[in-house]
């Protein structure tokens, strides 16, 4: 079993829809949780960063962490064609040197 599971998609939704991207994990020691966005042929860019459980909002993006269920989510409101990209979740234990990444979900927003 992988430490982090992420549905690779692809996921295709109409412009303006609410998008929900999810990851599950098995290691309860993970404390820091991240979402990266990767456009085609580009390096991943950090989108959201949260510590422990709870919600964090940044514009149209909301990250949720549920440590009791070992489940994290990224919500995109009012989705735009420019949101079309691959989204990767990542997480790390306190004091660790290496992130553990999900496989990435490929998202397409159709105009």
């Amino acid at each position, binding site marked *: 079993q992988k430490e982090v599971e992420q549905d690779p998609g692809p996921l295709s939704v109409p412009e303006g829809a609410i998008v929900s991207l999810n990851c599950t994990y098995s290691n309860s020691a993970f404390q820091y949780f*991240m979402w990266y966005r990767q456009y085609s*042929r580009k*390096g991943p860019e*950090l989108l959201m960063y949260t510590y422990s459980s709870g919600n964090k909002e940044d514009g149209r993006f909301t990250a949720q962490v549920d440590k009791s269920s070992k489940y994290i989510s990224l919500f995109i409101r009012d989705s735009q064609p420019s949101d079309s990209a691959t989204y990767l979740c990542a997480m*790390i234990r306190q004091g660790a040197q*290496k992130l553990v990444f*999900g496989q990435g979900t490929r998202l397409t927003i159709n105009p």
Partner: protein
Amino acid sequence: SQTIHQWPATLVQPVGSPLSLECTVEGTSNPNLYWYRQAAGRGLQLLFYSVGIGQISSEVPQNLSASRPQDRQFILSSKKLLLSDSGFYLCAWSEVGNTIYFGEGSWLTVV
């Protein structure tokens, strides 16, 4: 602010030829440095990471090596490339090990 530079952006190399990819980070001291590979349609694979000059940890036995000759310089090398070395190579850095920032990547095609 911190920046990361990675080059070359694209290269096509024959089988059996050597490889050198370079990465430098500006605006920080003693960062953790990472080399990842991303095969087409697949997730990120950590190849090497370094917590200091001359300190290299290898994650996957393979045809590649890494070196850190200076605090903010990280080099990925191969003496003889294989077809299977083709892929998207990403350098990344972190300050405290709880999130990382990626460069723009290098596309390598071995022919």
